[in-house]
């Protein structure tokens, strides 16, 4: 089932990347990033059956980083919403040249 798992992980990663590129809502883009992290986790778990338990240890680390990233990123989104009253990325263009 290794090849099927890797193919499924690649498809999920592709869907997440397409979501990041096509959506404008910052929260939905964040959730697409979580989907991409999940796809990578599936790769780790599938390969841990071949290469040893280290893959599952990495999954634990990835989940920790994802939780920290979600907390900080959502705090940033809340701070932006207080300033601009929107989470639409088209309207957040202060750094646009």
């Amino acid at each position: 089932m290794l090849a099927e798992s890797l193919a499924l992980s690649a498809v999920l990663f592709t869907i997440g990347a397409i979501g990041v590129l096509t959506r404008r809502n910052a929260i939905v883009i964040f959730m697409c990033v979580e989907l991409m992290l999940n796809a990578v986790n599936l790769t780790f778990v599938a390969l841990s059956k071949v290469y040893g338990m280290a893959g599952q240890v990495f999954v634990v680390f990835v989940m920790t980083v994802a939780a920290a990233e979600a907390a900080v990123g959502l705090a940033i989104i809340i701070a932006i919403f207080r300033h601009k009253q929107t989470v639409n990325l088209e309207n957040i263009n202060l750094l646009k040249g």
Partner: protein
Amino acid sequence: MPNFFYEVHFYLFGLLAIASSIAFVTRKSPVAAALWLVNTMFCLAALYVMLEAHFVGVIQVLVYAGAIMVVFLFVVMLLNLGQPSEFADVRGKWGRLAAGLLGLALLAQVMALAGRKLPEPFTPGGGYDPIAVRDLGAIGSIAQPLFNEYLLAFELTSILLLVAIVGAVVIGRRRRVDAR
């Protein structure tokens, strides 16, 4: 050992994961998108259990579906973004074109890699060891490398979490004008 029952359920959960992730990126409402993403994570947890990663399957449900997605839904509720926005959420023609091209490129790489042989395992005695898992249990077999080889990374993770907590509190705090 993989048998017919195993394979049917593997493909079932895999197709469910793909279908619900496609539903996730196409929903307009952020709440519906978040709930479809939760469904994807449950399917992935089932796949983890089928790939002999029982502990990872459990923390996938507890941490991802239970904690992280609740934080997302909480922010959607706090900012009152539950209804789909009246102007289109999806980017215009060029964004969709770029996304489609990227998707095709990524899928082409998958197709090119399909059927290739994986490199031989380079860790001596690596691979899934049912005897070790039976002796140590599903949690012990993860804890063994986590607290021996990867102890430094584990300790650094605690600093990361501390920084994340402090950062989230500082950024998310409502500043009063007279406090400056």
